[in-house]
């Protein structure tokens, strides 16, 4: 069976500087793969390369078996990849509704997709006409995830969604990630916080200097904290 997301041998550069080396992952629906690593390890670059924002010089991208390697960046989300960027990157001067409408641009089933996305975060309904830059940090993260869900993705990529949030907001986001996983979405999660990873991840890939150095099941990680010391420094 084809994987939901398969990346084969990405080499990505910033000018002359190589940021990803032979980056490869394979992710099935209903699973969470977490990328862990220190700052500058290449985690965010990996997500941006998958989205085509920083196109790789070499490598293949397959979504549900379809080869998207030659597609321009704006075509990639149409094939079912939702992206929650680092720092949320909402269109902060637009309202909650307008941010969600941008997520709906790739879909013809607009109203249904919007209702479905809002069902995960009922609080956004109350804020629907509010300018998104005035939301709290937790609400902004919820909106960023809801905006990505409006694409009706089979693969969801989240880049440090718990960054800067209070524990209650982190718990709410974690619960939604678990729910989405249980509904069959393939989730690629980038995190710095190990405690946010352990409850949701099935597999953890450790990155260093743009390469995946080791991939382990979450149970192995729980039994082997030395791995965290080696790759994350905690």
């Amino acid at each position: 069976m084809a994987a939901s997301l398969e990346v084969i041998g990405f080499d990505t550069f910033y000018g002359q500087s190589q940021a990803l080396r032979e980056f490869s992952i394979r992710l099935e629906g209903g699973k969470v793969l977490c990328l862990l690593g220190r700052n500058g390890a290449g985690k965010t670059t990996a997500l941006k390369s998958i989205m085509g924002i920083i196109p790789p010089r070499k490598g293949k991208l397959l979504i549900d078996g379809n080869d998207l390697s030659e597609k321009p960046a704006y075509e990639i989300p149409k094939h079912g990849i939702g992206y929650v960027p680092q720092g949320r990157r909402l269109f902060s001067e637009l309202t909650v509704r307008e941010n969600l409408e941008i997520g709906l641009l790739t879909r013809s089933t607009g109203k249904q997709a919007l209702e479905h996305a809002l069902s995960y975060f009922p609080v956004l309904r109350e804020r629907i006409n509010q300018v998104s830059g005035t939301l709290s940090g937790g609400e902004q993260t919820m909106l960023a995830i809801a905006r990505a869900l409006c694409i009706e993705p089979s693969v969801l990529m989240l880049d440090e969604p718990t960054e800067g949030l209070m524990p209650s907001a982190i718990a709410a986001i974690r619960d939604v990630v678990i729910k989405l996983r249980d509904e069959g979405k393939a989730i690629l999660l980038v995190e710095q916080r190990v405690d946010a990873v352990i409850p949701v991840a099935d597999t953890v890939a450790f990155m260093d200097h743009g390469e995946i150095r080791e991939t382990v099941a979450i149970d192995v990680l729980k039994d082997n904290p030395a791995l965290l010391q080696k790759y994350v420094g905690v």
Partner: protein
Amino acid sequence: MGFGPFLFLATLEGLVQASVLVLTAVGLSLVFGVMRVVNVAHGEFFMLGAVIAWFVATNMPGDPAIGFIAALIISPLAVGAVAYVADRLILTRLNYNPEATIVATIGLLYVIQQSVLMTYGADARPVDPPFYYTIRLPWFGYSSYKLFVIAAACVLLGVIWFVLKRTKWGLLMRATQFDRETALAFGIPVRKVYSFVFAIGAGLAAIGAVLIVPIQQAHYLMGLDPLLLSFTVVIIGGLGSIQGTIFAAILIGLSDGILSVFFSPTLAKIVSTLFVAMVLVFKPNGLFAKAKR
């Protein structure tokens, strides 16, 4: 004529100038706001609009109003098409690099200007207004066409506002303006949006030119003044801010009109330049610029 009526006349003249300026400057502001391109050729799109309006109006048989209406439709479309091609051939290939696009649009300025000189010639040529009716006020008579220019600009600003705030294309433009990278990640074809915006910006300058050619004559060097005034307006209002551009265009247009009538056009230019200098010193991002995020 007493001071009051004289001031009223000067204000009307200022509003006519402001109406044309606001359309031209909003085009420039839109291009900078969405694409981050400082389009030095913007005044030449204005000039091209005026020259095409002359060609269309002159070659259209029948009532001058038919020629004018045809010019109002054909000229912005033709200028928009030229801008679209220029974007695809030049700006896209420069990857919209801010410095490179300034140099490229300077080149485009000369290409358009000299092409018009070679084909249209160096003469200034008038276009007949669509109607000549004079409105009799208690103190003086005033051209109904000039009032039409003010009304047309108001309607067009309303249309621009509607497109930006209430349509899917407006949402695409605003999203691209705020964050190009995230727009791409949500399936927005950013380069197509850029080409569209560049064409719209040029088309707005052309509409301003078509409205003004029955008042000023079409000439191959007529692009310089609108370019400088548009930059003045956009700097005062805040680069990329449409509200700021509208406010500054009315301010500059009115001050230009009033000072030109009461004193001299030269003094009017000195005052608008002084405005720019004060804004650059005290509020360098413009009066309506938002705090950086």
